[in-house]
């Protein structure tokens, strides 16, 4: 059963490509990177053993081109492919094409991706495994289903409803509709986004559970029938249905509830013969009841927090499982978190202008460091241009500490250290969020950000105290003064504390 892998094609870009390349190096596997035109100097290209150009910047012309990726695999002699997340990670056609080409796909089988990638089929599997689901349509509603028919179904399910893309994920192609009058517009938007993002305009309709928490269970399955579920991740902090902060464990999940949710997740995975890494997402309502939401048949963006509280490496395990190895993790330990971890997704977005993307030139950057900090980024440094073509995720910043409150305090400290200039980032938004009394008390649900943002009423995140305005005035005056008389600050300029600290750390 156990077979050898030697060279892995990483069919992705950015921080996740770097994350996978690092794991491959640690396991003595050679790595092959691919890149679009604007990614020629990206970190994943520089870190890989080999790198191949695959086309223009638009994803459809490069990172989504199965034919080009398979060409690169052949040319480079790769024997395995890791899809990362996003792009082709949940594309069964890609997994199948890899298998047909004799390549090991480091992920689930194409059959499992097909089955669980269809939200309606996945719901049916969950029900068959005895796991409760949110009320909604059983079959996908294709483009041929008239608006009037969707309206009838929506009435039956009961408002408020969610319209979701059957092939979707990450909030794209998803709309909340609170009354029948808003349905036609929402339907048009959802279908058009579903078509442009996933190439499939089919949607489905689901009852919207009010103020739910989003709790998900990571799991691993091997090719010998073993499925191991992990401690939950709480991902209720979402904006536009995109997770922005995740933590593990959840502040409200008891060991007893954890056992039940993990058991439900494992039951679904076993039922569909799932292998490799996957995640089952649940909604947890105010009464403590949970409902199957969907399965993600891939590694998740937020996997580091699970790694931090369980002392495992999920990418190592993905590769070991793909090689046919048996899972020998202690299932009890995977459900017994040590300490607490939290992750903030640092986006190149302007929190003061509706979180619009803020691509462009990074003029200066210093990343946080020190105990309990884990940063996964795609190599953003001063001088790098954040491209407009892809997700504006600049870095994932995770912190670990013995308790939730200390993990949050450590994150706040790390955000204070994080100095990114030239582009706008969501760092000021996180600074505010991490000081919110309800967040600190763990009183959160998936509508938390919407409500908290509304309550701010447009108050800018970049507001600074009055004494800091004085400091800003001093700094600007200094720069103007020293530029006029460049000798002034002169040789006296010592290193900053930060530089000294970084250097000391490097020497350790």
């Amino acid at each position, binding site marked *: 059963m156990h077979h050898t892998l030697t060279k892995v094609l990483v069919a992705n870009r950015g921080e996740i490509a770097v994350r996978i390349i690092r794991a491959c190096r640690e396991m003595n596997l050679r790595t092959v990177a691919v890149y679009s035109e604007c990614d020629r100097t990206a970190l994943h290209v520089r870190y890989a053993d080999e790198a191949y150009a695959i086309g223009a910047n638009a994803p459809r012309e490069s990172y989504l081109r199965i034919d080009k990726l398979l060409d690169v695999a052949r040319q480079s002699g790769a024997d395995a492919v890791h899809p990362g997340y996003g792009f082709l990670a949940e594309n069964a056609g890609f997994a199948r094409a890899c298998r047909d080409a004799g390549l090991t796909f480091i992920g689930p089988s194409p059959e499992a991706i097909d089955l669980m990638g269809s939200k309606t089929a996945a719901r049916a599997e969950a029900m068959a495994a005895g796991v409760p689901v949110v009320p909604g349509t059983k079959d996908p509603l294709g483009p041929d289903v008239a608006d009037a028919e969707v309206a009838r179904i929506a009435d039956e399910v009961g408002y408020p409803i969610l319209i979701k893309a059957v092939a979707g994920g990450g909030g794209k192609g998803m709309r909340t509709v609170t009354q029948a009058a808003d349905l036609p517009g929402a339907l048009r938007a959802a279908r058009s986004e579903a078509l442009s993002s996933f190439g499939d305009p089919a949607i489905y309709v689901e009852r919207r559970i009010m103020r739910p928490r989003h709790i998900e269970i990571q799991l691993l399955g091997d090719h010998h029938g073993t499925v191991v579920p992990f401690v939950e991740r709480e991902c209720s902090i979402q904006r536009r249905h995109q997770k922005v902060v995740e933590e593990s464990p959840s502040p409200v999940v008891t060991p007893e509830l954890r056992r039940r949710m993990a058991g439900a997740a494992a039951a679904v995975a076993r039922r569909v013969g799932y292998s490799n890494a996957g995640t089952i997402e649940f909604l947890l309502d105010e009464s403590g009841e949970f409902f199957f939401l969907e399965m993600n048949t891939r590694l998740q963006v937020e996997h580091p927090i699970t790694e931090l509280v369980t002392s495992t490496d999920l990418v190592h395990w993905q590769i070991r499982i793909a090689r046919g190895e048996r899972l020998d993790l202690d299932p009890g330990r995977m459900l017994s978190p040590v300490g607490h971890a939290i992750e903030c997704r640092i986006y190149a977005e302007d929190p003061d202008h509706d979180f619009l993307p803020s691509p462009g030139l990074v003029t200066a950057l210093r990343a946080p460091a020190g105990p309990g900090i884990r940063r996964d980024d795609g190599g953003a440094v001063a001088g790098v241009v954040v491209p*407009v073509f892809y997700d504006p995720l600049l870095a994932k910043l995770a912190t670990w500490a013995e308790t939730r409150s200390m993990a949050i305090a450590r994150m706040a400290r790390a955000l204070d250290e994080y100095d990114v*200039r030239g582009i706008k980032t969501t760092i000021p938004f996180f600074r505010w969020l991490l000081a919110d009394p309800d967040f600190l008390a763990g009183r959160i649900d998936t509508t938390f950000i919407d409500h908290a943002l509304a309550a701010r009423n447009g108050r800018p995140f970049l507001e600074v105290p009055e004494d800091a305005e004085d400091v800003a005035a*001093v700094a600007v005056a200094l*720069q103007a003064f020293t530029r006029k008389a460049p000798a002034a600050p002169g040789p006296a300029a010592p290193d900053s504390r930060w530089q000294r600290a970084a250097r000391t750390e490097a020497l350790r």
Partner: protein
Amino acid sequence: MQLQIDVNGRPRTVDIERKDGLYRVVIDGVERMVDAAAVDGSTFSLICLADGRSSQEVGLSPTGLPGEIAVHMPSGVASVRVLTGAASRFGRGAGAAQAAGTQQVLAPMPGKVVKVLVKPGDEVKARQGLIVVEAMKMENELRSPKDGRVREVLVAEGASVEAGRPLVVVE
């Protein structure tokens, strides 16, 4: 050396001179002595002598708008405009006139116009959607800054736009 600046919208007068190996900085008549050292061309380590040598690191970065500098501090970012000399045209007068009259809605990022929701002559409410621009795989709806009437739509659906390009004029 004297500068007229505007910090987060508040006008300030700053005098700066070298004194006893330190900097004497007077902001609106209030004096402080600062021990300043340049870490690099745009980063300063400041030790203010007033409050028990409080230490701060401050970074400066151009915002792309002429005369405007973003000042990065541990407590956040302040926006500073230098009003003396060539930059003085960014004074308060221009802003006030703009708020009262016609406003342009600019592309905040490079992207593609996927939908134009209004046409010239349409009455619009503040925060009403005007145009949808796709960037980084997300559709972003740009909204009207005020109640008013659409005077001009400057782009067509399908057009690629650069950041800062005027898209719609509302009067």
